[in-house]
């Protein structure tokens, strides 16, 4: 996936688009991640100043949500659903297999809403039903 390199100036321009939103902090962090692939540590004071919040508030939001990351992602992102419905059709075994192949790229997730066609996984955002290691490898290329 392609992201822009981190830049304070670009970030400020993006934050300006949220000026009229009520309760903008989470949206701001999501917007940073969408643009740059992660939330750079410089975002915390930047967002705090921009929306007149304390750094603690922004840091609190940043660290609460599973989606938000503070380090740049690798080239691919693989996510395996390990919630109950997918567990019932072998998600734990798939998780182990995929992690042993792609290690750091892999995160756990809880439900993509594809519970009748599990195990479910996503590769770079694309949802895969009846997932297998082979299907994940193919989607990754």
């Amino acid at each position, binding site marked *: 996936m392609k992201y822009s390199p981190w830049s304070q100036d670009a970030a400020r321009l993006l934050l300006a688009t949220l000026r009229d939103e*009520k*309760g*903008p*902090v*989470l*949206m*701001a*962090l*999501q917007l940073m991640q969408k643009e740059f692939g992660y939330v750079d540590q410089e975002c915390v004071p930047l967002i705090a100043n921009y929306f007149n919040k304390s750094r603690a*508030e922004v840091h*609190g*939001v940043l660290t*609460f*949500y*599973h*989606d*938000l990351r503070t380090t740049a992602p690798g080239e691919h992102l693989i996510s395996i659903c390990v*919630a*109950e*419905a*997918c*567990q*019932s*059709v072998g998600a734990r075994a798939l998780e182990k297999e995929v992690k042993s192949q792609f290690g750091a790229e892999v995160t756990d*997730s*809880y*439900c*993509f*809403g*594809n*519970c*009748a*066609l*599990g195990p*479910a996984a996503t590769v770079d*955002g694309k*949802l*895969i*039903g*009846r997932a297998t290691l082979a299907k994940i490898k193919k989607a990754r290329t």
Partner: protein
Amino acid sequence: MRVYVPADSAAISIGADEVAARIAQLDPSITIVRNGSRGALWLETLVEVQTQSGRIAYGPVMPEDVQSLFDSDFLNGGAHPLALGKSDDIQWLASQDRVTFARVGIIDPLSLEEYRQHGGLVGLKSALGSTSESIIDEVTQSGLRGRGGAGFPAGIKWKTVAQTISTEKYICCNADEGDSGTFADRMLIEGDPFTLIEGMTIAAIAVGATQGIVYLRSEYPHAISVLQKAIENAREFGWLGAHVLESTYSFDIQIRVGAGSYVCGEETAMLESIEGKRGVVRAKPPLPAIEGLFGQPTVINNVLTLSTVPMVLAQGAAAYKARGVGRSLGTQVFQLGGNIARGGIVEKAFGVTLKELLETYGAGTLSGKPFRAVQIGGPLGAYFSAEQLETSMDYESLIAAGGMLGHGGVVVFDDSVDLAVQAKFAMEFCAIESCGKCAPCRIGSTRGAETIDLIIQGVRVDENKKLLLDLCEVMTDGSLCAMGGLTPMPVKSAMANFPSDFLGAAK
């Protein structure tokens, strides 16, 4: 020539896009309609051809099957091993009672014209010609209860918001469908988004709100994009905006995207998240109906609740409540998932038995191994055994059986499941997703997982089981919200219904 190929996420996940592309490649003159899924996910990708005698279905179609479909003249309903006959005659679908899901899979989700041809906007127009009081009365009379899981009567909630005086009120749609085994909100939004918009508009007119927000989880990117387009279409049409369908009402809808937190499906945590804060649960009272989003009176309803309202107003409360049993009136959109041969959406009147869902519709396990357990109502719901299949699927019967309906998810496990491991997972999940505000949930979940681990290892099994039940009582009675309060449900039901899995080393 019109061919339907679903653009539902589940269908796409097993190749619907490739099927559509292959059809377009082999005959570019065909109009391909990307409908929602009819809900028989075990038949996806379900390709339908519009013929003079109705829609003819083929499925499950893989991209590599498309050439042979053309060879069999499927455009004229030709015979093929994947041929299913007329879509409307497929027993699995025809035997359902589609109310909330009446249009899903039938129409082009983003065509307002098709929406209106299939009965859309009738409910809203009736609301526009009515008073707040009579709309709320109709919804109350219908018996419609919250489909998110709590089952609170929708009309009573609306009445509270309508009676609270404020110039700023909100309609918040909870589309943070995080329960494992549930996907009805996603399919409704992807397959018939205008129904949700119509339901929210009616709610707004009834309570005097001008702003709607849909809190939609980030795990559903396709649903987000479909709903965004539907909102834009509705604005262009003059439905959303300063004058709803040329009336004096003003109403608009914004989507707020979640960020991967399960507890934000709890209504007060959701409000905090929409306000851009940590998704930490609020103490109640004050009720959100009186002091909700940004401190203003707020209706919070699930996608399915709001999406059922247009039908209630269009066909009348009496028609809706003619279905169901006892105090569970109308239909429920059950979602069959997990280790099941025929998974998908089954919308039936309340009172269908678990057995009918699992056997008539589910047709056994996917693996072919014997059935052992079923979890109803998501990760906080109970595990039932084969001995409980006669249970009636309605709010009260499930509570009486030690469980809950939740959001209607039904997850099947074959005989390879170990319920002690599932019980431990319930506690671990709570530990990961707890918002951390109250101790029984934050600390109890971790201690619970440790204690179940000791039982699995065979360490002082009887003593630890007693301790675990005591901990469950503390979590049930002492937690601020359903996250900590209901985590004991899967744990205790697993212990009660599958005692042989909790014998430790003696197993």
